[in-house]
């Protein structure tokens, strides 16, 4: 920017020389205001998604910049929601970027009074051991009439309605192979 242009860019000069004599509009627009661009247009990518709250199934667009979610808003292409979101759907970015969200495994030992840290792989290994142990200890091959049961009543699971179909599928498949039958979700609440 040359010195002359720089000078002519001064608001007071713009005000004096331009039509905005009162300095209420064009003359006082800051460079930042002039250069404003919405973060939707500067996102690295826009990912098509679906609102995770209720079962209306509103379309969402997830805007990502530098590996972070920067905005979530309605997908105008959705024939169901036509781009609209309720307050919960509108708060989706806060849901996924919440500072109080837990991102580490926490462990409470039996009778413990506080949480402890536990590496994820260690936790997975411990949970697998407990599943195997409980399944061995609480197992029913047959009932009193000799009919096959092939199950454990020692292990139960709750939840699924907030999860993906694919996740529910693997859950039911694994539990069924384990012989765990007390599998339930929010359908009954």
């Amino acid at each position: 920017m040359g010195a002359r242009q720089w000078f002519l860019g001064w608001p007071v000069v713009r005000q004096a020389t331009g039509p905005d004599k009162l300095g209420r509009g064009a003359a006082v627009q800051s460079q930042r205001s002039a250069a404003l661009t919405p973060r939707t247009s500067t996102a690295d990518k826009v990912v098509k998604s679906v609102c995770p709250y209720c079962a209306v199934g509103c379309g969402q667009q997830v805007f990502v910049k530098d590996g972070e979610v920067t905005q979530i808003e309605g997908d105008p292409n959705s024939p169901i929601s036509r781009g609209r979101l309720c307050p919960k759907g509108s708060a989706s970015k806060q849901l996924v970027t919440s500072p109080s969200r837990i991102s580490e495994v926490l462990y409470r030992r039996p009778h413990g009074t506080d949480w402890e840290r536990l590496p994820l792989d260690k936790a997975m290994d411990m949970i697998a051991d407990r599943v195997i142990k409980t399944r061995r200890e609480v197992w029913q091959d047959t009932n009193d009439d000799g009919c096959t049961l092939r199950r454990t009543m020692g292990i139960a699971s709750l939840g699924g309605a907030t999860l993906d179909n694919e996740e529910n599928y693997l859950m039911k498949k694994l539990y069924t192979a384990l012989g765990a039958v007390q599998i339930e979700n929010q359908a009954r609440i």
Partner: protein
Amino acid sequence: MPGLGTSFGRGGATTFQQDLQNADCIVIQGSNMAECHPVGFQWVMEAKRRGAKIIHVDPRFTRTSAVADVHVPLRAGSDIVFLGALVNHVLQNELDFREYVVAYTNASAILRDDYADPEDLDGLFSGFDKDNRTYDHTTWAYEDAEAAAAAGDRQDHPGDDHPGDHGGEQHGETARSESYGSGGATMRAKPHHDPTLQHPRCVYQVLKRHFARYTPELVQDVCGVPPELFAEVADAVTRNSGRERTTAFCYAVGWTQHTVGAQYIRTASILQSLLGNIGRPGGGILALRGHASIQGSTDIPTLFNILPGYIPMPHAEKHLDLDRFVAEDSGKTGFWGNMRAYTVSLLKAYWGEHATATNDYCFDYLPRITGNHGTYDTVMRQIKGECKGYFVVGENPAVGSANAKMQRLGMANLDWLVVRDFQLIESATFWKDGPEIETGELTTEEIATEVFFLPAAAHTEKDGSFTNTQRLLQWHHKAVEPPGEARSELWFYYHLGKIIREKLAGSTDVRDRPLLDLAWDYGEEGPLAEPSADLVLAEINGSGPDGPLSSYTELKDDGSTSSGCWIYCGVRAEGVNQAARRKPGKEQTWVAPEWGWAWPANRRILYNRASADPDGNPWSERKRYVWWDAEEEKWTGADVPDFEPTKRPDYEPPVDARAQDGIGGAEPFIMQTDGRAWLFAPAGLADGPMPTHYEPFESPVDNALYGQRENPTREAYDRPDNRYNPAGSDVFPFVFTTYRLTEHHTAGGMSRTLPYLSELQPEFFCEVSPALAEQRGLEHMGWATIVSARTAIEARVLVTERMKPLRVRGRIIHQVGLPYHWGPNGLSTGDAANELLSVVLDPNVHIQEAKAATCDIRPGRRPRGPGLLTFMDDYRRRAGVPEEGP
């Protein structure tokens, strides 16, 4: 959703949200749609803009009522009387859509002569077993139809150690109820018909007699609704039904969460069938569901009593092998007659090459059920010490389930607990700061439960599909990596299975064969070794010798095809993820068939054959949707026809036809054995072939109709940790109902931690009328203590004219409103309304009665610490409730 399943053949919503814009009248009842499904509600507003009349029937004046044309306040728990009176109004005045009713419903079917009605038996249907509180359904069958025997067979499997008060004998039937998600109840033969509807034992006449006492006067007496308001609704729904016009019903858990919940939906199903509103644009019954994929988690169930695609879990006593498992259904007419193909394909998806004809396709690898193993049964087992390990994934039972204390006592008695969520919800921290720690009933050091909290990945951090309220699968794509150690459930279960299989690799124990033989290969992608959701979807869709399948009609029972969920077969037709289709709505017809993929077969309105008359022509130009193209010799229209594409309207099935060949060309309900909508359900429901009014289990009044006060088959568990308020108790004189608000989600795990939502509804409150406030000395913005036999909770008070006292059975009934989102954790906090609720369940789906119960309310905060226990002892003593056990 057995209410819909037994009526029409499939348990899902019969229509889709956008279709509401075509309705001429919309009745929202048992739902607060504007608050709980605001974006779906745009289609109600669209209909209103086009001139439709919007009616909201609800105990409370809500944000839905505020924009409806008519709000009908009624007493919580009295809906069957209101809906039954609408049915009666239609029948008495012959306002039914007669051509539709004769052709498409079972109105003309002749029933047995030994069927007896609650009108004859003071509130019981014939076949009641008083000792077990169950029904023998034999007498409910069609005359001369072997269905009677079949239905009888399915009942009375000896239960195991059901902890309820009636031994669980009925489970063989009740567990099946949920399996009518896609396929009606068993009938082996078609009924005799009297198309004149004059035969005294035809369904139409039986229905008419059954509902004859459901008059406007009864509505006034039981519901508290004035006759002229009832008349306005009756007039609106009948004037807006028929050839030229259609009425839609929307409901949600305001109907399901009752001890007679399935029958609420049945009543609406009967009404809509009589009015000819099923399978037609602007008609139908839209079930509004509250979680992103609650329909999906029923279709591909995380439920104890069904396998994917509503195939029942095998029962120990009855399903000794695959032949006997499918025998009951294989002979059937309708598409469910192909159940062997669906089952074998599932077993192939589970156990791959290990499943062969010689080993019964590993049918024996399936664990067996023996009774009710639902969530409340499980909690009682946890308290007994029998159930020791618990996974809680994306649910918060410590505040979200009825009788929340019972849930926490169960969790405090486990060996180990895995909680997977975004935030430290109450179910993860009960051992530290649960209400029982405060009262001294539990101490942290004494709780032996080992707790693993594993952070979960959000929807933006994983690929996968949700199935929304209208059976529509929509794929969401991963946008970013999950933070830190957060992982998807797909990752967690895949790797848990992998680790367990590795640890058991050398095992020779037969019980480990199902694990070791499991088909468990879904790739591992990226730095987190994430399994591929698309590969899982491919397995769900299924494949055959020529690759991916495109429709469930391609499934075989010879082991040559596999499909992890037969009703989802086609979601990856041509090997393409159809759930990920996103052709913009504006570039399609209003039906938008190229957005996502709906089961079954991408149909948006179910039973849409009924949108044409028996000859295949549209009932009217205005309500044209799917019709028979005589030139092309096929069904065509705006939607995928819910019918065999080239089956002529005049097709008459041969006598010995089975499966779909047994469905006539003018029978639109193709999942039903007789192809018809069931006004009278000869099989499929535990508590009666027709709905009849029973009071809620906790009710301040008697049953105006019968000596039988409450549902005789309800599942009650009277035990020290689940005491009930005595019926008609003066100590608990008020009715309360629980509900959601727009600003929060379910038990709050996904909303109470967010500042932007918490500031909008910052703490727990109760809503009372000015009259109740005056009577009990409650002050607006002050505190109230609300009490049931379970416990007492406190809430800030909102005094509002929107809460109406009603005159019922000659007395004023006050209702207390309790939104249930809260708990002690997070930014927006308060007591959990679920503390007040008891565990008393509908016998069909084991759902708790959360929408109507009794309570006391008094000003001030509840006692804290051990004082709460003495306070409760006093209440129980005064109410005559048995003391806590030793």
